[in-house]
């Protein structure tokens, strides 16, 4: 794709944040708080896309790293008065170390087994958070966490918090794009195509996978930290299996093999589920919770059946097909081993 398109795509992405913010309050369900959570989820999901789409590792324990970030921030700031930004970095270091350890242990297995090993890791951490009360506050959780502050700038309002989160999402996507479009990214795609050949070309497969797994965990840690500082209270239930599944849903619906999968998935899912939540009572009187659950499940199944590349992946694929058909696309998009496209930029 030529550079004006590429630039337009990025500009559109950057502007999507302020545009969403302008909609907040206009659309009944789109509160500013929901936008903050949307951005936080998107950020964690970008990391999951890297882990799953590019390192090819199914993770059902992403919330564990989210928890590490949140608890590092919560404990260090509320308990020891550490400045939030330092706590955030500490959370990243801890999550990175944990991810490296898990990755080294877990990459001996693959496929379903890997998914289950990450799931087990997430559950072990979840139960431990509830058990070791003196450190974590136990099931009752931990409050009194200060708002995020960088120097004298404080994210006291939702608007500030959202813009900060969105900036981090943009930055996160940029970093992910850089990695995908680098030696490591090529090495991982090569590994997907032929592990033996990649090894014989000097690709250290394990190191590349561990590296991406750690990077993906860092996204989750930052997201967790943002969550802790936004809500100012953390408790284990926020970081359980359901959260991991939520990240997985967002990333998969968005498109695992696209660095845009996180934000696209988060926006689409929130809009879709909330809009259907608004719409159901128009048809069924007094419909609440249970209907939402059912609709959410159905939407998930249908989206997965219709777009098995995810939405961002599907768009990129369609764009590429169009480009090929017209013969006007000089630089074809790369694809990974399973034939799913690895777009370098999204179609505007």
């Amino acid at each position, binding site marked *: 794709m030529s550079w004006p398109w590429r630039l337009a795509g990025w500009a559109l992405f950057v502007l999507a944040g302020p545009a969403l913010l302008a909609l907040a309050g206009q659309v009944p369900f789109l509160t500013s708080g929901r936008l903050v959570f949307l951005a936080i989820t998107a950020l964690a999901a970008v990391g999951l896309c890297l882990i799953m789409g590019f390192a090819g590792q199914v993770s059902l324990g992403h919330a564990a790293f989210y928890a590490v970030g949140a608890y590092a921030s919560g404990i260090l700031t509320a308990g020891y008065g550490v400045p939030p930004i330092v706590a955030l970095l500490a959370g990243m270091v801890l999550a990175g170390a944990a991810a490296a350890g898990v990755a080294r242990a877990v990459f001996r297995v693959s496929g379903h087994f890997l998914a289950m090993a990450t799931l087990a890791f997430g559950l072990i951490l979840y139960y431990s958070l509830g058990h070791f009360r003196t450190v974590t506050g136990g099931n009752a959780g931990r409050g009194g966490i200060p708002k995020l502050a960088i120097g004298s700038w404080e994210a006291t309002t939702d608007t500030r918090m959202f813009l900060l989160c969105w900036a981090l999402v943009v930055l996160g996507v940029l970093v992910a794009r850089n*990695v995908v479009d680098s*030696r490591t990214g*090529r090495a991982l*795609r090569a590994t997907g195509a*032929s592990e033996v050949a*990649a*090894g014989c*070309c000097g690709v250290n497969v394990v190191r590349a996978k561990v590296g991406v797994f750690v*990077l993906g965990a860092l996204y989750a840690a930052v997201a967790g930290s943002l969550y802790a500082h936004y809500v100012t209270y953390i408790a284990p239930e926020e970081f359980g299996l359901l959260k991991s599944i939520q990240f997985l849903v967002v990333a998969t619906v968005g498109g695992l093999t696209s660095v845009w999968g996180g934000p696209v998935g988060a926006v689409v899912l929130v809009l879709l589920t909330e809009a259907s939540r608004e719409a159901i009572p128009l048809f069924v009187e007094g419909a609440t919770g249970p209907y939402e659950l059912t609709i959410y499940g159905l939407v998930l199944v249908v989206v997965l059946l219709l777009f098995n590349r995810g939405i961002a992946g599907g768009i990129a694929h369609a764009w590429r097909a169009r480009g090929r058909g017209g013969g006007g696309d000089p630089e*074809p998009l790369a694809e990974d081993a399973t034939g799913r496209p690895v777009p370098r930029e999204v179609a505007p």
Partner: protein
Amino acid sequence: MTLLRTVGLTKRFGGVTAVDDLSIELGDVGITALIGPNGAGKTTAFNLLCGVLPPSSGTVEFRGRDVTGQPPHRIAVLGMARTFQNLELFGDMSVRDNVMVGAGAHLRGGIVSAALRLPRHRSDERAARERSDAVLERLGLGDVADRPASDLPYGLQRRVELARALATDPALLLLDEPMAGLSGGEAAEVAGAVRAIGVPTLIVEHHVETVMALSDRVLVLNFGRLLADGTPAEVRADPAVVEAYLGAEDAA
């Protein structure tokens, strides 16, 4: 000077001994051919050399270092590159990206410099790209650099594999039947290219005549054991070889 030395290299699969007590030594010049009847253990020997399979016993020494049991990527970084009998291209990636994977073998910049686009990353990328483009030009692949590797005709795909191996800047090139499935003209082109490269090469080949013409030295493997070792002329005259291999072929 010795480039590669194996001592008592052995590989057993269950009850079958695919490579049996193989001890060879390669200097750092010229083209050596490894020949033998089907199932003689040539490809297994290759896999043992470059670390794809761990040996049951014996050692491999490459450029003065014991690399026995080392993973392939470490041996590759030391300077051993290979191609595959059944092509192992990264089919969906472009030809240039295929070659750049090889060209990245010696780069040290990791995920961090890539993520942050540090100057290190830029210079790395530039170096890898320049080297790749040079190799592509040299092998006449410049025009197809941006096409997905799997879109190319078979002969060109063979050449892309060779380019990818060369891009790692090898000290030793292992070619596993590089002419398999090629027409006579294409095979001659590849032979010419291999000659021109000038990197020490160990080549497994089925076309006995091509090999004899191309090689400086010939190793003959039979039932996993080294049967003969010498110049093409010496090997051709060796009665054991004639009986085990050439003779059989002649009869066929």
